[in-house]
């Protein structure tokens, strides 16, 4: 780390103030990094990005108003060189895939932040990509799986909300038979034994959120 090189300029996006503070405190101790701005949702993130053009952006996924994936799509569309690191609690392959497609260069679990955040910022700034091994394994495991259709995801989300078939049918304005068909497909695609199992898998793989 030569002192003459300009520090890495970082934008931190998270709806949780305590986490933003934590990131700020951690970065403060690093001579080669500087936190230029913070944002608490996707919309603010885009604004702050336009103003500051940070070298590296730390992006939470679940946020009110505009989520991280939508913000990343907007930022990457406008600034193709944007280097974004996703920070999340979730390990699910579907979630990861969505983030990667939206332009994420690295994926970091919040549980690993304290050990890996600084290194990951430096790596991504140097132009590399980074994926924790456990996530890479999970991605590989499901690489050839059939993805759920958006309707099926919707049905799964309603199941996770404790809705019975009849209620799901009413909410989606389809027949109960169609709901049953969707559920059958969901069980087959996720290799689940039953509805609850499907929800568990859905949560684990990031198909649906808590």
């Amino acid at each position: 780390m030569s002192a003459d090189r300009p520090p890495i300029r970082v934008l931190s996006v998270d709806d949780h103030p305590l986490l933003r503070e934590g990131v700020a405190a951690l970065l403060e101790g690093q001579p080669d990094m500087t936190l230029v701005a913070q944002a608490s949702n996707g919309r603010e993130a885009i604004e702050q990005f336009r103003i500051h053009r940070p070298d590296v952006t730390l992006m939470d996924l679940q946020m009110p108003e505009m989520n991280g994936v939508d913000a990343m799509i907007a930022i990457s569309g406008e600034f193709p060189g944007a280097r974004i690191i996703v920070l999340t609690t979730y390990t699910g392959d579907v979630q990861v895939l969505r983030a990667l497609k939206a332009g994420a260069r690295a994926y970091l679990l919040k549980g690993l932040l304290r050990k890996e955040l600084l290194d990951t910022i430096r790596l991504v700034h140097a132009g590399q990509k980074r994926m924790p091994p456990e996530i890479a394994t999970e991605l590989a495991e499901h690489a050839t799986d059939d993805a759920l259709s958006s309707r099926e995801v919707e049905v799964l989300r309603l199941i996770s909300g404790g809705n019975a078939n009849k209620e799901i049918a009413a909410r989606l304005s389809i027949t109960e038979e169609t709901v049953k068909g969707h559920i059958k497909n969901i069980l087959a695609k996720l290799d689940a034994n039953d509805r609850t199992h499907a929800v568990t898998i859905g949560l684990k793989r990031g198909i649906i959120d808590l």
Partner: protein
Amino acid sequence: MGRYFRCGALMSTAPDKSMIKRLPEAERNVFWLAVAQLLLGIIGLAVITFAAVPLYLQPGAISLLYLIVVVFVSLRSGFVSSVVVSLAAVFCLNYYFLPLSSSPGRKNPLAIVATGTFLITAWVITAMVARVRKLTEAQLALRFEERLAERTRIARELHDTLLQSFQALMLHFQTVNNLLPPGKAKDALEQALDRADQAIVEGREAIQNLRSSTTLTNELAQAMTELGQELGAARDGERGSATFRVSVEGRPRELHPILRDDIYRIAREAVRNAFQHARASKIEVEITYSERLLRLRIRDDGKGVDPKLLDAGRDGHWGLPGMRERAEEIGAQLEIWSEVGAGTEVELRIPGSIAYGTSPRPSVFALFRKKATGL
């Protein structure tokens, strides 16, 4: 109370699904069940009819007895059977006691009124019984839904607040750690932080489980098998570790997540008692899925419990009060048989209508529905 170890085929404790033995004969035929109850009702009527003359019973008393039989049948096996039995009762009534057609063409108006009153009373009572039962079930189902929604809300809240805050705090601690010079303090802090990381991971998993129900599989049998292995492994090495078997009768059915959780927890308490307190050499779990009810039996051949203690249900002792409360909450019946030296048997019975939610009590209607949909 020597009701021990009379269950049929058993399985070893492998979690493999194919190892859980299924006994098809428990798939009791709904039709024969309905017929049997119908016959029972008819026999009841016949007994009353033939006893009426030697006992000098008045027609009013006889009708009342008939009515009791009809209500009993409607309680046991549903509307159709009750209608059939009540018609049979009317036939007996007319034939023996209030001759309707003593001379063809001239009917006794009093008999017609009496018959009508009898039928209306019988059917109104039957309908009321059915209605009350349906309402109770609907109320229970609603309570399950409410509890599921509440649980989901708690899980989300814990995830969004507590868990996120802890993760953020870890960053602050790491900042302190980075400021410390290498040495004992830094090492100790590093170790503490590693432990905290672990705790957070466990917390996250607990929250996820809270959301998606504690038993990860819908198969109670499998959940029980895994539980037995877990408890057995924990006590392995100690002398006298018990053998654990699970058997399933009938076709496993889908249960509401909340209900399944509660059933699992009640059974878990029973199995845990058997492992930890009973000094048993055999522990068996028998799960029966029949149309009418879902039944779990947990048996051990251990040292047993003093029945007085069972009745008193000493606070906190063996988690018995908790089991009873939970059972009551889900509309289940819990019975425990035990004697000192004779082992313990816990039986949990949940009416099919509550356990399987959508499926009604066995009735001839249900049979026709099944035939019609080809299931």
